[in-house]
């Protein structure tokens, strides 16, 4: 007997364990079946032994073989043996094997009932755990019936580990033995409110499954689930509950509202993510999102607002803002109302007012916003008013009229000094009325409004503006009155000034005082002259002559530093540190803070100074407002105090002279309709002109974004200003389409060229007719013989522009100008296609047919036509030959003009801004291939050089440090082009990287060419 045991233990040393088996199988790839059959034989031997450990090892190996597809059902009894081991190690393996191998027709399962029951009541929770896990896989109706009670007891076990397993397995039991459901259900329901989240989610899962099978029995649980849904933070559970509601809603529609809440929030969140990549698809749900603004839940409303910001377009801006305005009126609580206000302004002003087509509308929106009670964003509205009035010239007359009404009604805004947040608007109103006073209909009335005694109650910085602009108005009034024969009117005006100004001279505010006394003296002097009948208006007006122009924030950088000026040198010796620290940056609209004049001790020793400095630094570090532009400690107090006040809901429509912004929505709609109609008319005409069978597929469906032409345009001061030598600022008209760069080649008629300059900004020094080939030039191969029809000499300018939406489309805009004095008609534009580039022709026309230019040209007229080309590969530049045929009306002769279109690689690049971190990441990615080029003898300042690359080659500057700059651009097919430009002396080196080396090479060549011509 002893010998047998010893032998057994020695044998075991040579037993294969699972790892050996796996390794063996992997080593016998060729004769796997044979190897496994020997293994199975071994396993059979092992199973015959008494030692439970050996058996467990064998069963473990069998489980593996079962997975490989071998039949192990013969070992079912051995598996039960291992399951019944008292040791967890073996029990675990036994149950695993059972769960993998047993199914309902396995007969030994019947033998396990008692064993499982024993394990379920084991004091060791893990014994119970494995039993439950195993059971979940092979539970039969018999087992379910016999064990239902035991499992039900386990649902109230002290250990959550057991409880959750018991709850889950209950579902299986219900399926196999439905009678158990009724007694177990109350307990299951109880588990929904179990303190342990695991048990809770298990109960949710089970009930969800049950409800799906028979929803109407579970309706009563809806309130409980709703509570769970609002309180649970577990997303897994939330999804399940939403699914459950999905099953219940057909029976109880009211439920939709409750779960809609959570889903809505999630949906809005998801939409805002989608919006970044697919704006179009989100825009179609605009109405839905607008509805969310009505939601009771503030977090949903704020989310919806965020979304709206991203989805406005020219088409829907007015509508969206109109809805928002309604909400502003309805909104309760100043915080949300302020949030709405800032959002409206953000939405309208984003990307340089890109989406505003009618600025009259915008001004009236701003004016309507001033009626808001207790907002603290008065300064925001004010700065918008100023910005728009200054930059949109066409709007000034309207803006001034509105502002004058505002000034007239100023008492309504400032009636309650507590809500003086809004009176900041008066700052803008006063300035606009003063600066653009020539547009005022009744300047005298406005002047009186500005000199009312009530003004003295306004904050100091606003009073100062009032005083200064009253003077400007005074000048305007004088001018109009002096023209009259009656000189008393002018004198009365001066008297008014002299009467009212002393009020401001007494002001506690230094700025107001100074300006007022200055102007008072001036007016007194004027009055003296008036009494001597001297015409003075001209001179007074000269005081305020000249227009203030906006300057781009970075324009200063473009101004070259004059020679001999060292900007870093001190003009005066630097003041001591302690003094400079006192000065804080002040924003325009900063609240006035009473300046306590600090008594200065002149004789303080060094130590004392250092100590104080330390103390001050400490104080500043603790003051959260210190670095802010507006020192707002005072503000904070003020807002607190005004929160306690209860204001009546918005006072509406007390201004009489102001148009409602709504009417613009209507007007705009009409305007667009008219435009559309006109366009259709034109199209119809075009179609008539075309020969039959050439019907163009202009879709007259919904207007696209590009179709909407703005009623007003903003002057935009761009940062990329090519070749600005002094402070001259160039304005680019930003059209609704892409920014267009026109460049032309002149071959004839120099005087006419000058005329054109007004229309197209021409950035070349075009001395001597040297033309450059950056974007593309028309090369007329044979200039028309002068003798024959010089009258029909024509002139074209063209611009090649990639289409961002479609990586293979390029739009060529050609400007035809008739420089002769004959009428030109029936123009046909034709290009000889190459393999790579093809002119897009309407369906049904042959590959060599020309395209009819959709207009005729009377003498001296120019017009633009656009042609679309499809381009396969954009990595090589290309020249296409083409001809233009036309009929000269007077002589009815056919004329022909040859030209060449030069598709440079640069014309496939699109100026794309890039942030420096994204740029760095791009370079790090290692996908880009490098190349470099050196330019010798470039004699121009570095910023000119950069501007030139930006302008001609569609790059944008990412970062510039001294004489080194990184630049970025993207091709229409998404190639990244990165440049590193360095200059030293007259040598410029450009290191470039791009994912397409050929494209890069060509772009660099073109850059080189640009600079070789200068």
């Amino acid at each position, binding site marked *: 007997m002893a010998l047998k*045991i010893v032998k057994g233990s020695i044998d075991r040393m040579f037993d294969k364990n699972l790892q050996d088996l796996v390794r063996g199988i992997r080593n016998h790839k060729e004769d796997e079946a044979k190897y496994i059959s020997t293994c199975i034989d071994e396993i059979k031997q092992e199973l015959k032994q008494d030692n439970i450990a050996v058996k467990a090892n064998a069963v473990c190996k069998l489980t593996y073989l079962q997975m490989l597809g071998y039949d192990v059902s013969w070992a079912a009894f051995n598996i039960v043996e291992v399951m019944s081991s008292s040791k967890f*190690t073996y029990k*675990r393996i036994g149950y695993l094997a059972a769960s993998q191998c047993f199914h309902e027709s396995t007969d030994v399962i019947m033998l396990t009932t008692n064993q499982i029951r024993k394990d379920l009541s084991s004091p060791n929770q893990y014994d119970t755990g494995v039993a439950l896990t195993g059971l979940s896989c092979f539970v039969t109706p018999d087992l379910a019936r016999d064990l239902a009670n035991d499992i039900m007891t386990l649902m109230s076990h002290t250990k959550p580990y057991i409880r959750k397993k018991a709850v889950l397995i209950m579902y299986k039991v219900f399926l196999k033995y439905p009678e158990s459901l009724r007694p177990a259900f109350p307990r299951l329901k109880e588990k929904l409110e179990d303190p342990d989240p695991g048990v809770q989610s298990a109960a949710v899962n089970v009930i969800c499954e049950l409800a799906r099978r028979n929803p109407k029995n579970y309706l009563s649980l809806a309130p409980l689930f709703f509570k769970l849904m609002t309180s649970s933070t577990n997303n897994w559970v939330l999804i399940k509950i939403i699914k459950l509601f999905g099953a219940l809603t057909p029976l109880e529609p009211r439920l939709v509202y409750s779960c809609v809440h959570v889903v809505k929030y999630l949906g809005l969140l998801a939409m805002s993510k989608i919006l970044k990549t697919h704006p179009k698809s989100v825009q179609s749900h605009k109405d839905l999102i607008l509805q969310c603004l009505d939601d009771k839940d503030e977090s949903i409303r704020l989310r919806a607002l965020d979304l709206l910001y991203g989805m406005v377009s020219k088409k829907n801006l007015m509508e969206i803002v109109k809805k928002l305005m309604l909400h502003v009126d309805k909104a309760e609580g100043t915080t949300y109302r302020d949030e709405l206000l800032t959002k409206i302004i953000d939405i309208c002003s984003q990307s340089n007012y890109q989406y505003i087509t009618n600025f009259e509308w915008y001004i009236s929106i701003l004016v309507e916003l001033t009626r808001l009670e207790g907002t603290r964003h008065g300064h925001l509205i004010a700065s918008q008013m100023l910005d728009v009035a200054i930059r949109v010239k066409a709007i000034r007359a309207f803006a001034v009229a509105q502002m004058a009404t505002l000034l007239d009604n100023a008492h309504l805004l400032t009636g309650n000094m507590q809500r003086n947040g809004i009176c900041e608007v008066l700052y803008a109103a006063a300035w606009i009325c003063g600066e653009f006073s020539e547009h005022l209909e009744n300047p005298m009335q406005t002047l009186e409004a500005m000199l009312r005694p009530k003004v003295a109650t306004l904050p100091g910085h606003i009073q100062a503006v009032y005083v200064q602009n009253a003077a400007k108005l005074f000048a305007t009034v004088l001018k109009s009155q002096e023209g009259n024969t009656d000189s008393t009117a002018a004198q009365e005006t001066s008297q008014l000034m002299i009467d009212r100004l002393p009020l401001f001279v007494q002001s506690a505010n230094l700025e107001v005082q100074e300006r007022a006394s200055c102007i008072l003296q001036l007016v007194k002097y004027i009055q003296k002259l008036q009494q001597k009948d001297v015409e003075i208006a001209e001179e007074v007006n000269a005081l305020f002559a000249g227009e203030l122009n906006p300057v781009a924030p970075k324009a200063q950088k473009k101004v070259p530093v004059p020679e001999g000026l060292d900007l870093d040198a001190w003009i005066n010796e630097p003041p001591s540190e302690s003094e400079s620290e006192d000065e804080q940056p002040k924003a325009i609209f900063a609240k006035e803070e009473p300046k306590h004049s600090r008594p200065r001790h002149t004789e303080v020793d060094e130590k004392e100074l250092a100590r104080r400095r330390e103390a001050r630094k400490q104080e500043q570090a603790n003051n959260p407002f210190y670095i802010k532009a507006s020192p707002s400690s005072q503000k904070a107090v003020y807002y607190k105090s005004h929160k306690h006040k209860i204001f009546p809901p918005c006072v509406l429509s007390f201004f009489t002279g102001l148009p409602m912004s709504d009417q613009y929505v209507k007007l705009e709609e009409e305007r667009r309709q008219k435009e559309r109609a006109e366009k259709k008319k034109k199209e119809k005409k075009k179609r008539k002109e075309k020969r039959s069978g050439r019907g163009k597929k202009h879709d007259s469906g919904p207007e696209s974004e590009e179709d909407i032409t703005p009623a007003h345009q903003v002057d935009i001061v761009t940062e990329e200003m090519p070749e600005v030598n002094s402070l001259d600022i160039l304005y680019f008209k930003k059209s609704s389409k892409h920014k267009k760069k026109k460049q032309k080649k002149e071959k004839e008629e120099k005087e006419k060229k000058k005329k054109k300059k007004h229309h197209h900004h021409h950035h070349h020094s075009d001395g001597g007719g040297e033309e450059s080939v950056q974007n593309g030039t028309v090369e007329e191969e044979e200039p028309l013989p002068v003798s024959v029809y010089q009258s029909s000499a024509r002139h074209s300018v063209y611009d090649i522009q990639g289409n961002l939406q479609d990586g293979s489309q390029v739009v060529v805009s050609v400007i035809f100008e008739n420089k002769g004095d004959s009428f030109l008609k029936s123009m046909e534009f034709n290009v000889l296609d190459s393999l790579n580039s093809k002119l897009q022709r309407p369906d049904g026309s042959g590959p060599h047919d020309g395209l009819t230019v959709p207009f005729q040209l009377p003498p001296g007229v120019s017009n633009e036509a656009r042609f679309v080309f499809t381009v396969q590969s954009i990595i090589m530049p290309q020249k296409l030959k083409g001809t233009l045929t036309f009929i000269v009306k007077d002589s009815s002769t056919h004329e022909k003009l040859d030209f060449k279109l030069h598709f440079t690689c640069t014309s496939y690049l699109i100026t794309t801004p890039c942030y420096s971190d994204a740029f760095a990441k791009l370079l790090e990615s290692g996908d880009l291939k490098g190349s470099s080029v050196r330019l010798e003898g470039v004699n121009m300042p570095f910023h000119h050089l950069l501007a030139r690359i930006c302008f001609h080659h569609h790059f944008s500057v990412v970062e510039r440090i001294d004489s080194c700059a990184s630049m970025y651009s993207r091709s229409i097919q998404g190639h990244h082009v990165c440049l590193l430009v360095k200059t030293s002396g007259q040598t410029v080196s450009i290191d470039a990287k791009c994912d397409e080396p050929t494209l890069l090479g060509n772009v660099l060549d073109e850059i080189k060419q640009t600079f070789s011509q200068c």
Partner: protein
Amino acid sequence: MMRFLLLFSRQGKLRLQKWFTPMSEREKKKIIRDMTTMVLSRQPRSCNFLHWKDLKIIYKRYASLYFCLAIENQENELLALEVIHRYVELLDKYFGNVCELDIIFNFEKAYFILDEFLMGGEIQETSKQIVNRCIESSDMLQETMEEYMSKPAF
């Protein structure tokens, strides 16, 4: 509920199978064959969801291993995808940077982890910490085969 979870290699070798409803060997074999051929024939950049009979098959590839989970029609696909990912995270946590070989050689451990995470075709525990804690304490109870080998049998 979930019906089954299969793990197989790119060559179609089964690495783990879990059936949440009892099924005969023949059915299992047929399903495994269908799944491997269906999933392996998918193009690399196609979506992770398939319809198969009345079930939805959600699969995801991690390195050389395909995780393939069958759910009932009314279940949420994304949740299933998340279940797969959570299981991978659990394996990763347990084995420390899990690879296919870990699962081959310790296939019973992979099952034990799965049994703590899912049960009866439902999610049992969503907390990674709790699952890990349970596995650790069960492992403490289980003496390793090596320990057993070096212990005298009497």
